[in-house]
């Protein structure tokens, strides 16, 4: 494979290697096919047994703007975003200068040799690769050339850091759904670049991958697909949505896996998917469906949540089950549609005018995306209220390593629904049925579904004032009674929503409270802090309104750090609101810098306060 380009002249590295513990950042242009090349590297590492995570930092654009993808290998199993990168693949001329400037000393640059550019730094290692020549030699037609360019860096990375070619070939086949032709075309370029690198580059850096046994039995999946699968296993039957980044792939995930919900006899679906004209209609549809007895959900992001506010209040007040996924992005306003945030927490919890309050589930992993996928549908039916699930862009759109998902540990819960027989029995036992009367002391009434063939089944659903019998009422006492019951229902919700995960040693006086996708950063930060003598307990909140144990944890430490990825410290605000006690020992550490949280940020923040 002789390509007549002068190889770089650098000293062969002879020191100790840094194995499976570094981050590689790939800078490309959006729409250039780098998703594929990066996924192939991740899948290859995963197959080699190396714990790996990928963070895609992409623009709100179809083609042309810069995009960065960070792949982190961690022999210790840490999967949070790495705050610094060791290796930069600079395949975007527009950002190359900045990408190189940001590299730490001793870092590695992989860059096309075709560009006219000058080396701006002397403290990094450069590998120049003749991209154009290699593509010409591979005889890639102009139609495919742009999208296949990135396979050149895959080949170079493979040789430089020891990724076996056969592993890459298998990852390519997986990536192309076992279609041999595109896989082979891409692999041809990988192989060419690999061989050229072997023949022409001198390995001058200490980084390398080695097979290990850190991913056995694990899966690799994006959060949105996990949420989609959870919903499918939760028996969702009506999905209405309006496309919005970063939630779109959640509904896509349901569509792609519809085969799981096809009736074997007729081949017809047991899920209706409705693409609405906007988010107002989307939530209206799932409320109509929930009212009629379907298991319904929508998926959206911040701007869509804003539009759903009025309808959500109706569903809360009229007590109609439905599930709303908010895969959050940066707000306010259109904000940064392709950057991650936890900025919708307060808004979701209190969405709509008047005295409203909604359960919000907070998955902290892809495994919980799956679990809360099915559980949210149960909870909505059981509590007869809209249930929000707040995921985020990081969790939803990045690939995560995880243990396989557990099958639901309980049958589908439909809540208190009186069908014809149950209504007959209920009337016999109680001599009455009032839709909004609290018969069981949990604030949840019994509902009938439209179409129930019983002369007493009908009731009138409304967002206006009503009494226990669902009759229109403007009476103050009816209003107070109804709102009191709704509040009581939310108190009851505290006991049935997912409880916090608490890691606690009474000897430790510092507590960390966090939630959602911050979990990997906190886990890693606690290890770093412990190594420096700062011992911490940790509670990961998994739902609003809080369980009682959340209060206990918050109040039983000398110092509590509330760590979250928004700008205003919204979880800290809710904690303070819920605790009349002195909370001056509670320190809000809110990141909100548009990126997934890194352990380094957590460590720096805590050490600054210790």
């Amino acid at each position: 494979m002789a390509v007549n380009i002068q190889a770089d002249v650098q000293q062969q590295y002879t020191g100790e290697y840094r194995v499976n513990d570094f981050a590689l950042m790939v800078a490309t242009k959006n729409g250039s096919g780098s998703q594929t090349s990066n996924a192939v590297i991740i899948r290859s590492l995963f197959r080699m047994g190396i714990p790996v995570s990928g963070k895609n930092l992409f623009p709100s654009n179809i083609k042309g703007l810069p995009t960065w993808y960070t792949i982190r290998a961690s022999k210790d199993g840490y999967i949070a975003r790495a705050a610094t990168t060791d290796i930069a693949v600079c395949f975007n001329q527009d950002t190359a200068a900045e990408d190189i400037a940001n590299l730490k000393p001793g870092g590695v640059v992989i860059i096309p040799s075709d560009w006219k550019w000058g080396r701006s730094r002397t403290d990094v290692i450069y590998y120049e690769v003749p991209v154009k020549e290699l593509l010409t030699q591979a005889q890639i037609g102009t139609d495919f050339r742009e999208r296949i360019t990135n396979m050149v860096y895959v080949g170079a990375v493979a040789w430089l850091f020891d990724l076996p070619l056969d592993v890459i070939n298998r990852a390519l086949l997986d990536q192309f759904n076992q279609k041999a032709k595109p896989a082979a075309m891409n692999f041809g370029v990988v192989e060419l670049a690999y061989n050229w690198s072997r023949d022409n580059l001198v390995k001058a850096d200490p980084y390398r991958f080695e097979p290990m046994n850190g991913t056995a039995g694990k899966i690799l999946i994006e959060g949105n697909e996990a949420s989609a699968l959870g919903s499918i296993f939760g028996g969702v039957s009506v999905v209405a949505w309006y496309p919005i980044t970063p939630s779109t792939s959640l509904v896509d995930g349901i569509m792609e896996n519809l085969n799981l919900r096809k009736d074997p006899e007729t081949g017809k679906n047991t899920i209706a998917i409705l693409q609405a004209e906007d988010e107002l209609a989307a939530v209206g549809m799932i409320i109509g469906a929930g009212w009629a007895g379907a298991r319904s959900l929508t998926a959206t992001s911040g701007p869509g949540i804003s539009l759903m506010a009025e309808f959500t209040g109706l569903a809360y007040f009229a007590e109609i089950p439905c599930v709303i996924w908010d895969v959050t992005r940066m707000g306010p306003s259109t904000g940064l549609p392709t950057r991650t945030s936890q900025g919708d927490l307060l808004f979701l919890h209190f969405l709509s005018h008047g005295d409203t309050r909604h359960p919000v589930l907070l998955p902290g992993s892809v495994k919980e995306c799956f679990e809360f996928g099915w559980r949210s549908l149960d909870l909505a039916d059981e509590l007869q209220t809209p249930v929000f699930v707040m995921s985020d862009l990081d969790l939803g759109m990045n690939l995560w390593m995880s243990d396989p998902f557990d099958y639901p540990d309980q049958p589908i819960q439909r809540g208190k629904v009186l069908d014809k027989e149950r209504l007959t029995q209920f009337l016999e036992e109680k001599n009455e049925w009032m839709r909004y009367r609290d018969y069981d002391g949990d604030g949840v009434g019994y509902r009938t579904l439209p179409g129930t063939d019983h002369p007493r089944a009908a009731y009138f659903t409304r967002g206006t004032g009503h009494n226990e019998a669902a009759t229109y009422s403007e009476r103050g006492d009816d209003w107070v009674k109804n709102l009191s019951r709704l509040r009581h229902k939310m108190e009851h919700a505290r006991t049935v929503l997912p409880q916090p995960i608490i890691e606690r040693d009474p000897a430790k006086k510092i507590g960390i409270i966090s939630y959602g996708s911050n979990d990997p950063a906190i886990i890693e930060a606690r290890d770093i802090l412990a190594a420096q003598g700062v011992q911490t307990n940790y509670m990961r909140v998994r739902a609003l309104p809080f369980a009682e144990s959340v209060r206990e944890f918050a109040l039983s430490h000398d110092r509590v750090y509330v760590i979250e990825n928004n700008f205003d410290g919204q979880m800290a605000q809710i904690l303070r609101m819920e605790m009349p006690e002195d909370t001056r020992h509670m320190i809000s550490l809110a990141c909100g810098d548009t990126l997934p949280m890194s352990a380094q940020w957590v460590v720096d923040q805590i050490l600054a306060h210790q």
Partner: protein
Amino acid sequence: MPNAIGLERTDYKGGTSTLCPGCGHDSISNQIISAAYDLSLPMTRVIKLSGIGCSSKTPAYFLKGSHGFNSVHGRMPSVATGATTANTDLIAVAVSGDGDTGSIGFGQYKHLIRRNVPVVYIIENNGVYGLTKGQFSATSDEGQELKYYGRNELPALDLCLEAIIGGCTFVARSFSGDAKQAQTLIKAAISHRGTAVIDIISPCVTFNNDPKGNKSYDYGKKHEIALHEIDFMPKGYVHPREEITVADYDAGEMIEVEMHDGSYIKLKKVDQEHDPRNRASAIATLEKAQREELFLTGLIYYEEPRPTFGDTMHIVETPLAHLPDNKLRPSQEALASLMQSFM
């Protein structure tokens, strides 16, 4: 006299109306009650849906044996879409107003029609906002004067025209003071498979009954021109009145429009050469009437129903709301093999 399922007309009533005495909306509720009674509709299969406004209160005043849903302003179509998708066995009767449909809910109205959601969509159109005490609506007439809000300088939206353009396969207009026609159209609409729009001019006795205004009772009575005399024959109709009705019609001037379920509407032309099966002429006729400031009432447009929204969803026949758990949750083995594919 009990109907075919043994119910009296009074069984189809609802709660007492809280609308102003003499409101045209109440007579529409009465026509819905009569239509449901005549058709022997099982009330438990009917759902009543509405948005917000005077008109949207009315589902509480008819068919007390049916589930009702008074939703939010202008967004009832999406609720109807979700409910009828969740349970395709339901018969949906929706009531809206000119503000609810023509202003805040215009987008959802058009999309409901575009999807052909099987709903009888009755607009109780009084050309004014009643509950907020008399502002202009999008169907208020150009040049109309109101006490507090002065002169309306904007042209009116014609909700029937919008329905036809949007692809609606059943579009009718009536007048709340014309009980027989309204009732006949409601019956036909219930038998129609797909969205059936009936825009019923219903004068507001309190805020928009200036005899000069064209949504007033006086104006309506004077300027209403029926496109046809109409009669509706349910499927398998054997009432002796049928013969009399037939005798009333001149065979040469009669059109029979068959509904999807085998029932049909008979139309007798009066003084307009109007074929409701011709889309272009339906549009032209409405535009002409608009220029001449006339109400044309009757079945303005009808075509063979397109597939309903439910038909396009490729869903199982059992209503989704009634699927048993084993149809809703894939097996443990399915999850295991799925997990394998992510390894």
